[in-house]
């Protein structure tokens, strides 16, 4: 877990996805072959940090390690460049989490390996147009 997370830290810290240099198709997470034009000329691209909620769910059943964060809201977000991303929604009231709400990326702790292990950081989103 920790080594693979380390390899992907730019994905989690900065929302780095890919852009196709041939047809400008963008996606997150990164891809090696453009799903649209099959090109291999791909560059890293930092995704926009704002978007809108297109779907969401409120979970009252926790995943192991997230017991203190109930209820947990998860959103499917369309970023300003049209790319979809799934993320936890934080610092947002349940009544403000609705379709079309504007959200902004924030940098948060995702989890930690107990009290002595590594801390995992990454993106989450919060509603800003409440």
């Amino acid at each position, binding site marked *: 877990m920790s080594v693979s997370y380390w390899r992907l*830290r*730019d994905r989690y*810290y*900065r929302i780095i996805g890919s852009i196709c240099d041939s047809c400008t198709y963008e996606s997150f997470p990164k891809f090696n072959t453009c799903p649209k034009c099959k090109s291999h000329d791909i560059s890293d691209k*930092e995704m926009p940090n704002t978007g809108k909620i297109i779907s969401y769910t409120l979970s009252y059943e926790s995943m192991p390690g997230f017991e*203190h*964060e109930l209820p947990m809201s998860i959103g499917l977000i369309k970023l300003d460049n049209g790319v979809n991303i799934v993320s936890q929604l*934080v*610092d947002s*009231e349940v009544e403000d989490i609705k379709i079309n709400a504007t959200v902004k990326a*924030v*940098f*948060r*702790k*995702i989890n930690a390996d107990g009290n002595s292990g590594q*801390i995992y*950081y990454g993106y*989450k989103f919060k509603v800003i147009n409440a």
Partner: protein
Amino acid sequence: MIIPTMKSSTPVYISGYGGYVPKLRLPTSDIAKLWKGSGSGPNEAKSVANIDEDTTTMAVESARNALSMSGLCDIGAIFVGTESKPYAVKPTSTIVAQALGVHKTLAADFEFACKAGTEAMQVITGLVGSGMISSGIALGVDTAQGRPGDNLEYTAGSAAAAFVLTNNSKRSIAKIEASTSYVTDTSDFWRRQTESFPRHLSRFTGEPAYFHHVESSVKQLLSEINLKPSDFKYAVFHQPNPKFPIQVAKRLGFTTEQIQPGLLNPIIGNPYSASSPLGLVSTFDVAKPGDRILLASFGSGAGSDSFSLLVEDGIMDKGPNYIPLTDIINDNKEIDYATYTKLRGILK
């Protein structure tokens, strides 16, 4: 014994700043209800980091705002001043660097109780002013700890402030005119290695610690740059509680009006290393070109750094993404003491 006023040989400017205050507020009346039955602390409420926030996450939020305002990318130093590093060994500053996408940079964590942030500003002023780097980010950040039931529990808040210092005068928000520092070995407040909460000698935190150091450093600065309190439009002092900054301002000849825009303790408490830096963020939000600002920190153990800053035209253009600190502070939610203990991991 007193360090002479520090001036860089070439000018150094602040070209971006950012503050971050977590959303949650714990009213001090809730703390008092538990420990004393009634009443409140000296401040109305304190800011509390959420369960997924720590010094690193708040540092990243404030640094992103400061960097975005500056429009700069050639960052040669990232120094995080804090006494609440998430890792005892492993720098916070490298995580901030990775999150900003900055790699060809110095990175270090500074420690000096509540004045580690202003210390980071002074070191970057030296690096930029000497020409070793062109720009750097200085941060003051803390998730302040207070032992349950201790007086510090009422005031210990959480926040972050970041400043981009640069030799590039183009977007200068303020010029750093001079700074000074004054230190002694004074055991007013400390935390031993492996302990979770700091300890303090109550009566010692006032006269021999806060007042002696802040007054010494500010008087030294004013005499060396030949300015008087009335030459400043605003002043920001470290805020361990709402009273000390008002008292020290009065003793030094500053008015309550001068310190008002930067006085945040009543609503968010004392976010340690972020306290006076966040007061500066709040003061920049209302400042106009030509205003002179005094900034004086205090760190237990003990010392005080003071700065003279001259606001410049860049203050009028904070960029399209800037959110005033008042808006960040007003976006808040009250929590109770039980929620606070759960969020901060005080239950063991």
